[in-house]
């Protein structure tokens, strides 16, 4: 199987734009893997083949790279890929409990997808939001300060097609495929949505302002 001609044409157009940004074409490999993931919801055999052809690499070279990186999925991810941080600090703050309950609630484990194809789960390593622990991510948007209850509600809402908003992010949640396209370097128009910063990010600044503390004048 390979891509339908109109799909292939569209992917080629995107791929050429991406490749054109780099002094050497092979640098476009990671973005192209994100691009094919935006088409298929995972890096498919066709996806590997496409990247290899576009960059003049062997398929083995492409597979060797894609399998190194955890964000490239080897089987279809759910429309909503849900991660629970289980690195030390989030685990201690409640991430372990969230993971246990969520996994039980959905009936799927790490790197598995619900039968309706809506939600996949992943045990995440640190996602650089430790001041919002315990942290979850959906399609790589932040869901801060979670509890087992909020986590289960979140996944239920996702499966029921209800509106779900990230804590610090746009007003609507992209699908996994749409998110992959942004990662490929083809951004959507949602950058302006959501706060500059929120919650814990602002605690230091609040303390400084309350005390009239500033950096010295030049």
């Amino acid at each position, binding site marked *: 199987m390979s891509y339908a001609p109109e799909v292939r044409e569209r992917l080629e157009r995107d791929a050429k734009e991406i490749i054109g940004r780099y002094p050497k074409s092979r640098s476009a490999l990671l973005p192209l893997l*994100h691009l094919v993931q935006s088409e298929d919801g995972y890096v498919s055999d066709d996806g590997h083949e496409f990247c290899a052809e576009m960059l003049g690499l062997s398929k083995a070279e492409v597979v060797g790279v894609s399998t190194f990186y955890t964000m490239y999925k080897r089987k279809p991810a759910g429309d909503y890929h849900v991660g629970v941080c289980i690195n030390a*600090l989030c685990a*201690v703050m409640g991430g372990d409990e969230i993971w246990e309950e969520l996994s039980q609630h959905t009936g799927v484990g790490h790197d598995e997808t619900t039968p309706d194809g809506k939600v996949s789960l992943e045990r995440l*390593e*640190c996602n650089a939001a430790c001041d919002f622990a315990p942290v979850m991510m959906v399609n790589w948007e932040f869901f801060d300060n979670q509890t087992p209850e909020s986590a289960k509600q979140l996944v239920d809402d996702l499966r029921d097609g209800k509106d779900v908003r990230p804590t610090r992010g746009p007003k609507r949640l992209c699908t996994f495929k749409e998110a992959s396209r942004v990662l490929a370097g083809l951004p959507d128009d*949602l950058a302006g949505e959501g706060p*500059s*910063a929120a919650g814990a990010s602002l605690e230091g600044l609040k303390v400084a302002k309350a005390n009239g503390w500033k950096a010295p004048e030049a």
Partner: protein
Amino acid sequence: MSTTLTPVLTASWDRPDSFTIDGYGPYEAAKKALGMDPDAVIQAVKDSGLRGRGGAGFPTGMKWGFIPQGDGKPHYLVVNADESEPGTCKDIPLMMANPHSLVEGVIITSYAIRANHAFIYVRGEVLHVIRRLHAAVREAYEKGYLGTDIFGSGYDLELVVHSGAGAYICGEETALLDSLEGFRGQPRLKPPFPAVAGLYASPTVVNNVESVASVPSIIANGADWFAGMGTEKSKGFGIFSLSGHVTRPGQYEAPLGITLRELLDMAGGVREGHQIKFWTPGGSSTPIFTDEHLDVPLDFEAVGAKGSMLGTRALQIFDETTCVVRTVLRWTEFYAHESCGKCTPCREGTYWLKQVLKRLEAGQGTEEDLSTITDIADNILGRSFCALGDGATSPIHSSVKYFREEYLKHFEVGGCPFDPKKSTVWGDR
């Protein structure tokens, strides 16, 4: 007088438009820099005393000075925005709220090292941050701050935002370069250093986000202004990230040399009814500290003198409800998961550390296991290409040093003596 906060990079974060070019303002520092001799820009950063904010603390201006000039090769700037060290959470909110400080810093840095092509290698798992970076770069192009003949100076610069794909190891600068070249992210043997043979074997500067974002303020306000903050050898300000069992975790921008006691005072202390047990000064790769270290000035020298490292100023606070063995096991599982597999001591060592620690946590270990884990750690430390393996040994050595009794307790009682529910955010409710 006690130390106070000095918001510079974080000062605008409470403005709803801080991430837009209108909210940030014209790139006055870049304009000023492009009117200077590139070597004078390097000198200003050297004079400021700015040291790398990504953990290692190498003097930034000196790094730039290592780039050979007049060598006929293209030069590159690569911003390391692959923030993934457990506990570290400063660059991500910085790029979300204030991406233009980074883009302006990229222009100044690239000009100083004579690079016409720069990259921001950002970890892939932060979608909205990536959108903000793309938008900031696009705005800068539209204003003519990127592209050709910037500010009429004749200087050209292209800037590409490049998303990673989930690999902690790509925060290591040479692994990052391999990844950016389209390979598996595995570290290179140094030398040659990136300054000589970096991206595409050309002279390359790899700098952390916060380092580069600090540069416009140095150019705008002067090296003396920056050097007036901080301590003798650790100058300037930095973002301190408080997380864990703290009343108000968050980002606190302060001069280097502030203490955890001072920061905890500002953050409302350890969560109510509890006491600090252990903490990391700069992420999981820096040996843990305890309550005896609350007054250690958080600068490169003082933290080093007490046997740890300033790292990324990622202050993860754990109170007395936390099991140190469990915490160390989880960090160790992280290192085993993220080891790229290139060097045997790190690949095999982290794997075996994980096995033995699991046994210890389950209360099925023996006192001999403590010698085994420290022995394994000794055989990883300094024996791999990069610092990932070294980092994996930090929690092992430091936890056995400060909490040997707690390890012993596990096999005395035949299990973990702690209730994990008590350490959760809702454990007290």
